[in-house]
């Protein structure tokens, strides 16, 4: 690659790496932590960061990437809003000789040469891990297990994938059944109202699977208001492991959390330096992520940053 153009601006002469990063938006605390991690890491590495917030819109993100091309940044990184539809703008970047790194979410482009690497989580895998844990809990049992699923924003990639992975994991166990599946829009308030409604209409709930911590935390409020004990009367599984979620896990109100780490910053800076230098990197780098049970949460909680 290399920044090819002879007419590049004067600001770059100091050799400082310029990274253009286009964020999905600020739709959750997770995302804000993600943003912060990247900003901090860039500052620590001494890179100039061009940051742009797409407010959840693909068109804004495309616009931002084109703007990065115009601004002649050294490396472009972005968390795609959706999986498809990037070929055209990535080609523009390639033509301009600017390497691209995907973070957090993958794209389904067939031409793999359009980006250098993907750094992030696998949402399907997260759903699967949540499902696996539930299956393991019920190993050997045949009593029916009624699961309520609180989905994320309808049509959003994490929602679709976490649903998919979970369904796949429990497929082999006919006694585990999803009795209600509703969207809580990834927010606490909707998680609560939806759970209220479900509690009213569904008599027998054993497990709640929420696509993120926030919805789970909202649901906990609803469960408590209905006079039930979250974590005991109803087992709760969530994804993300933000601080509030970990606290609830440690308090025994949540039973299991699949981590989805927002702290991509340092890894990203590292990769940026490598691709700028023209080194080859792995086409797919998964963030170091884990899962938490209640005991693990108690141990991990003190140094949870976000």
């Amino acid at each position: 690659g290399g920044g090819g153009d002879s007419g590049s601006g004067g600001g770059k002469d100091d050799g400082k790496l310029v990274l253009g990063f286009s964020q999905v938006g600020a739709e959750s605390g997770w995302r804000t932590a993600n943003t912060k991690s990247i900003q901090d890491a860039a500052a620590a590495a001494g890179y100039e960061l061009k940051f742009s917030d797409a407010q959840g819109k693909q068109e804004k993100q495309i616009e931002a990437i084109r703007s990065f091309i115009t601004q002649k940044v050294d490396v472009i990184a972005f968390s795609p809003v959706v999986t498809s539809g990037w070929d055209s703008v990535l080609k523009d970047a390639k033509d301009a000789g600017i390497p691209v790194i995907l973070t957090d979410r993958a794209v389904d482009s067939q031409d793999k040469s359009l980006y250098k690497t993907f750094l992030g989580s696998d949402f399907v895998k997260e759903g699967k891990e949540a499902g696996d844990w539930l299956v393991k809990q019920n190993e050997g049992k045949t009593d029916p297990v009624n699961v309520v699923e609180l989905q994320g924003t309808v049509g959003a990639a994490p929602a679709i994938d976490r649903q998919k992975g979970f369904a796949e994991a429990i497929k082999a166990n006919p006694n585990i059944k999803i009795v209600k599946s509703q969207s809580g829009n990834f927010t606490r308030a909707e998680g609560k109202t939806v759970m209220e409604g479900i509690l009213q209409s569904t008599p027998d709930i054993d497990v709640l699977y929420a696509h993120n911590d926030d919805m789970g935390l909202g649901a906990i409020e609803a469960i408590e208001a209905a006079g039930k004990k979250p974590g005991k009367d109803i087992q709760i599984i969530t994804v993300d492991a933000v601080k509030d979620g970990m606290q609830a896990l440690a308090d025994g109100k949540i039973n299991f959390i699949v981590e989805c780490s927002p702290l991509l910053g340092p890894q990203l800076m590292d990769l940026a330096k490598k691709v700028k230098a023209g080194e080859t990197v792995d086409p797919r780098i998964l963030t170091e992520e884990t899962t938490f049970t209640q005991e693990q949460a108690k141990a991990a909680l003190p140094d949870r940053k976000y």
Partner: protein
Amino acid sequence: MTVMSPQPVTTDPAINPRRRVYRPNTKYIPILATLALLLVMYLGGLVNYENFDQPSVVVNLFRDNAVLLAVAVGMTFVILTGGIDLSVGAVISLTTTLTATLLQGGWPPLLVLPLVLILGALLGAGMGAVIHYFRVEPFIATLAGLFLARGLALFINQESIPIRDELWTTLSDMRIPLGETTKTTLTAIVALVAVLIAAAVLAWTRFGRNVYAIGGSADSALLMGLPVARTRIAVYTISGFCAALGGVLYTINSTSGHALQGTGTELDAIASCVIGGVLLTGGAGYVFGSLLGVMVFGLITTIINFQGDLNAAWTRIVVGVLLFGFIVLQRLVTRRTR
């Protein structure tokens, strides 16, 4: 009874006989003011940011906002009649989803293209008919349209669907050279053509003038014997068509379809029109104004992208502040000259 000359002669130039009274003919002033302010904003960008002087900044303004532009064109028609169309964003999502799904299913592209455009127009026509014949508030009728269109899109397919059709990818990769280094895309050209056609229709055709008449006073227009029903249904049809066109441009731009695309576009389009001087109560404004309105939003985004150190919170605040500054200045300039 008429004993004297009905045409008195006056010598005082300040006071014309039987002339219009208060305002000079100021119809273009808001647009010129908006244009001037837009240029000031651009100059501000030039002074402050490196690489802002590249032609691609201006070219990308059209390219990035082609979809919004197409939608704003249709919205201008609707707002000029005093209506509103909230369904446009959802029509975009339905169009992109349907296009991508059909193409994925192997339908011939040359069939899919007119099909989705007609579908958008029909949806608009349906809403227009409900609005006119059942006298339902445009807000609620088009909100139902919004739910319906996005609901259908989500029902058809929730996922982001790639388009691998050859025609679409060719159109997407097409670059039209402008000068030596700058290139633009087909989508920008199509959107600009839509603006030109709309401007011509509004200024030079009977239909266009009827649109303004209805916006001025629908009751009067009816009593003057204008085809109110036809015109009103037509503007919603146009808006539906333009939204579908926006959707198609979207699929060409990104070679994909997704049911969540176009979220919030309705508000952007309405705001663009209004910033461009189209009165929400109807009857006044120009499609070039809407074009400028779109450019205002585009330029604000561009500036924020060049600024490059704003997080989400500050991005919103700066957008608000820039918008505020722009509108207040625009208001002051136009009021002064009135």
